[in-house]
C-alpha cells in the first residue's frame, strides 16, 4: 500500500538546487522576453521608419529608465540563451552527471550576470 507522502510545497522554504534554480529562471526569463516582444518591435520600427523617428529612437535609447529595462532584457536573453545551450548539451547526454550538472548551472548563472554587467558598462 502506498504511504501518503508529506506534501511540502512552501516555495519560500524550499531550498532549490542550482540546476533547479537555472531551470525555473529559464522559464521565467522566457516568459518575460515573450511579454516584451511588442516593446522591442515598437522600438525596431521607430528606428527604421524615417530619419526623424530614428532620432526619437536614439532619445528613448539613451534614457536611463529605458536602459534599465534594456539591461533586464539583456540579462533575460543571455540567461535564456546560456541555459538553452546547457539544455541542448544535456539532450546529447553531455554533463548529465550531478557534479557536471551543478558546475554548468553555476557557469550559466554567473556567466549571464557577468556578461550583462560588461554590456551595462558598455552602454551606460
Amino acid at each position: 500500500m502506498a504511504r501518503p507522502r508529506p506534501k511540502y510545497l512552501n516555495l519560500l522554504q524550499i531550498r532549490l538546487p542550482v540546476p533547479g534554480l537555472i531551470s525555473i529562471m529559464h522559464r521565467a526569463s522566457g516568459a518575460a522576453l515573450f511579454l516584451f516582444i511588442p516593446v522591442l518591435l515598437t522600438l525596431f520600427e521607430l528606428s527604421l521608419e524615417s530619419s526623424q523617428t530614428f532620432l526619437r529612437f536614439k532619445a528613448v535609447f539613451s534614457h536611463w529608465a529605458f536602459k534599465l529595462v534594456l539591461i533586464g532584457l539583456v540579462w533575460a536573453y543571455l540567461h535564456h540563451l546560456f541555459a538553452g545551450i546547457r539544455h541542448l548539451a544535456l539532450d546529447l547526454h553531455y554533463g548529465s552527471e550531478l557534479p557536471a550538472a551543478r558546475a554548468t548551472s553555476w557557469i550559466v548563472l554567473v556567466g549571464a550576470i557577468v556578461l550583462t554587467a560588461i554590456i551595462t558598462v558598455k552602454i551606460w
Partner: protein
Amino acid sequence: MVGREVSGAHYGLRDWLAQRVTAVIMAAYTLIILVAIAGLPRTMDYWQWKLLWQAPVINYATVLFIASLLFHAWIGMRNIFMDYIKSPGLRLMLYVLTIGALLLYAFWSIQILWSL
C-alpha cells in the same frame, strides 16, 4: 476494452524538436547580428542603420530569426499555460490570445523589414 494510451495528439516530439531547431537558429543569428552591429560606426546615422537591415543576408536572416522566435515563443508559452492553468476554458482563451499576438507580431515584423 482496448487499453488506450493517453498520449495527446502526437505533437510532443515534433514540438520538442522544433523548440531545439528554432533555438539553434536564434543562437546563430544572435552571434551574426552582434558582429554586424559591432561593425557599425560609433556615431552611426539613420542611413547606415537602414543599410544594415536592407542588406539581403541580414534582412532574410532576420525574417528567419523572427519566425523561429515566434514559433519558439508559442511552444514555450503553451507549455507554461499547460503547467499552471488548470481551467480548460481559461487555458484555451490564453492559447488563442497568444496565437493572435504572435501572428500580429509576424505581420508587423514583415511590414517593418520589407518596407525598407
